[in-house]
């Protein structure tokens, strides 16, 4: 049960100032659908991932014209990695490409939550709470799903209560907060302010406060303040090294025989209004490194694992005036793990012609993210469809679980 560097000690829990992820502390065999000791991880990408850069529709005739300076290509330097002939993968994600070829990763494209507006705060509420409207922030769908799961038969109730009692947490992502006990963990190293914060403050100060702008500029120029323009490893959830570190820490605990089975993490920095190429290259490399860390640290448990990666909404189909993209609708989700029936891009592709875009600007959403989550819950965790529609994703009766995502 001891991990060398990571154990859910009181110190770590109390030190969880950033509260980067948490998990439900479920005993062994509690999640044993089909005799399998399953692991389920949800990674939230805060800021709205541009799905058209992560997984680009190279085969769509309108893609290059919309993306212009930020379009990726099938050939040349920095070529996109082929997936299925129509879609290709961002070149920063070689691990994902390998897992895809091995049948352990798939892409869900042109998908979205029930949310159709463009506020990050509200979008993340909907994505994580599982409700159709924002503002319901008392609990997340992953937590309510845990409450509804069948209890493992091999665990005596008394023992289970004792384990659940271990739960302490500082700031877990909303998706896993709620009535089911969760244990919080964060690396002992403190999370510094994200690189993106410095850039946003630089932008604000340069408009409003020359004195503060000067000091901040000097801090950035001398390397005291990181901005994402350098490669300084800083360990936060918006930093590639930080993502790998967090993933490895989560995986070590998930791998333990009587450790947690369901985890949620949040990675930050995906709001790419400007200079999207460089920033997404870094961030996607971090996400890709997180996949590799999970695979490595989970060891034999990898075959029973599914990792769902989701973001609050997508971005505009057209490049904007600052080599970035603005808030949109449809985007990609990723599903990775040894338990995943992968090697495919799941998409009812809506097309990129003007009339096919939502409001003439966004990739339309043709797949409901809730269907994906429900499908995993049913096939990996033996959740009941009734509970999923009633308690986990209220109001989703018409959104059927997407079956066949899990081997």
């Amino acid at each position, binding site marked *: 049960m001891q991990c060398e560097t990571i154990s859910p*000690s009181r110190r770590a829990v109390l*030190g969880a*100032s950033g509260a980067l992820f948490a998990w439900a502390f479920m005993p062994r065999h509690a999640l044993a659908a089909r005799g399998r000791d399953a692991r389920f991880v949800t990674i939230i990408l805060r800021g709205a991932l541009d799905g058209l850069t992560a997984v680009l529709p190279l085969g769509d005739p309108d893609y290059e014209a919309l993306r212009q300076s930020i379009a990726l290509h099938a050939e040349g330097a920095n070529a996109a990695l082929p997936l299925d002939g129509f879609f290709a993968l961002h070149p920063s994600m070689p691990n994902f490409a390998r897992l895809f070829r091995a049948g352990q990763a798939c892409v869900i494209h042109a998908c979205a939550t029930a949310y159709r507006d463009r506020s990050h705060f509200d979008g993340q509420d909907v994505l994580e709470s599982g409700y159709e409207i924002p503002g319901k*922030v008392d609990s997340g769908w992953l937590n309510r799903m845990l409450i509804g799961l069948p209890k493992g038969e091999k665990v005596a109730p008394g023992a289970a209560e004792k384990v659940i009692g271990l739960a*302490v947490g500082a700031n877990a992502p909303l998706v*896993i907060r709620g009535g089911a006990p969760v244990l919080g963990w964060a690396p002992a190293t403190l999370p510094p302010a994200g690189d993106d914060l410095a850039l946003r403050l630089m932008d604000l100060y340069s408009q409003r406060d020359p004195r503060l702008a000067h*000091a901040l500029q000097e801090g950035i120029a001398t390397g*005291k303040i990181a901005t994402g323009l350098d490669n300084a490893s800083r360990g936060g959830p918006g930093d590639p090294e930080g993502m790998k570190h967090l993933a490895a820490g989560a995986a070590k605990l998930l791998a333990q025989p009587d450790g947690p089975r369901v985890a949620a993490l949040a990675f930050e920095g995906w709001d790419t209004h400007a200079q999207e190429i460089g920033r997404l290259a870094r961030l996607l490399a971090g996400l890709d490194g997180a996949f590799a860390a999970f695979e490595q640290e989970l060891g034999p448990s990898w075959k029973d694992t599914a990792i769902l990666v989701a973001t609050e909404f997508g971005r505009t189909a057209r490049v904007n005036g600052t080599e970035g993209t603005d808030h949109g609708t449809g985007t990609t989700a990723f599903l990775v793990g040894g338990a995943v029936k992968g090697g495919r891009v799941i998409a009812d592709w809506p097309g990129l012609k003007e009339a096919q875009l939502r409001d003439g600007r966004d990739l339309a959403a043709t797949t409901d993210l809730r269907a994906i989550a429900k499908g995993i819950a049913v096939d990996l965790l033996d959740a009941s469809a009734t509970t999923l529609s009633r308690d986990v994703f209220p109001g989703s009766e018409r959104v059927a679980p997407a079956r066949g995502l899990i081997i």
Partner: protein
Amino acid sequence: MVQSPDRIEAALALSRFGLGARQGDLEAISSDPRGALKEEIANRTVPSPAGEELKPTAELLNDLYAFQEAQKEMRERKAAEGISTPAGGVPQPPSSGEQPGKADAMKAEALSSSSSMAGEKAGSAAGTGAPGTPMKGANEPKPVVPFPQRVFLAEAKARFSGTIHAPRIGFGERLAMFWANHFAISAAKGPNVRVIAGAFERETIRPHVFGRFADMLLAVETHPAMLFYLDNQQSFGPNSPAGQNRKRGLNENLAREILELHTLGVNGGYTQDDVTSLARIITGWTVVGRQGRLGTPGSFVFFANAHEPGDQQLLGNIYAEAGFEQGKAALLHLARHPATAAHLAQKLARHFVSDDPPSALVDKLAKTFMATDGDLAAVSTALVEAKESWTPQLAKVRSPLEFSIAILRATGAKPEPQPVLGGLYVMGQPYWQPSGPNGFSDLVDAWASPEGLKMRMDIANVAATKGADYFDPPDFIETRLGPLLSKETRSAVGRAESRAQGLAIAFMSPEFQRR
């Protein structure tokens, strides 16, 4: 957006003269912001720190003596048993601020707060189930905090979870911070100052914030904390019986700082002879030792045997030998000196209004000070009534202490003191621990540095991560900064990629950083 003048003044009252807006404060005073400030003056609103450990100075020093006695016995017992102990006595866990150069450790402490935002929601933050069941590691013995540090932490807690949250505006609390920095002492001097640093502020500053300056001055210069800090207990009249016996002489430290920092100011027209003369005048001002030969151990005493006999000349006036009364008369004279009035007026205006305050404002404050014989309520009122005090430009940058307090007020957080103290340390303003008797700088340049901003960003980030569960950033800035907000800040906060980032931007916005 056009704001009514009263709305803007309400925001200025809270940030420039107060501790920062809490939920509802802006609305509460917007009908008459200046009236609300004057009400705090009239009511003498200076909250009293409360807590079990917050005892009077003499009691605290007595307890310290007992603690040191016990330490000594333990050392001797161990030595007798042949157990070697590290130099410095019994092993002690690190205590805040006594280890310069340990910035990383302090930062870790600063950022590892286990506190909760908005008190009433504590415990639900992570949706945890049943708290309180022990988990692995939970039963590790807590390190023993040595007595002086325990008191220091209790005093800090009484401020950060207590006095700063009580008042509507907090002008009195801000003035208490101003005067405590004016009469700076440092807990780094040693355990004897550390243990009474809080008592010093409670006993000498707070009672006189809206009283007479002369009373504050006399209370300060006779307080054990100041006497220890500036070595006056070591100063002996060369011709006094005790000085003769022990072959000891003057220590000018306190006398010099009284003239240079506490009253006249560095250009206040005194000479080296005046410094030496004042040093002679206050010989014998000391603290009763642990044996209690001169009275209650740990209390102020005039030790006549150490007092330099004879009349003394100070600033051209002769002070006849009169024991303690000689020094008291000298201080009272210094307290009502025009140079003192000018010095204090300049410092007050610079603290509240701008690094380079309008001379009209400084003149008004100095004149009020002179006309009222140093009535600080009248001076504070003059500051509030002066039109120069209400410029809408936010010329000052909040000090780390003010910034930390503004975050705590704005979020309603009442954390354990360690993370707050750690934050102050890394931002360059270790609590009650300035590097010299001149206190912490009161200039924008001292705080708007690249290093300082970096630390503020990290601290804003941690506070925002905790606060993200409780506050909607656009609402948050409207209720806390409202009429001061620029459209650029509104936009930057509204466009943040997460609630936590939105709050971090709010804390780092020019409108929150400045006042």
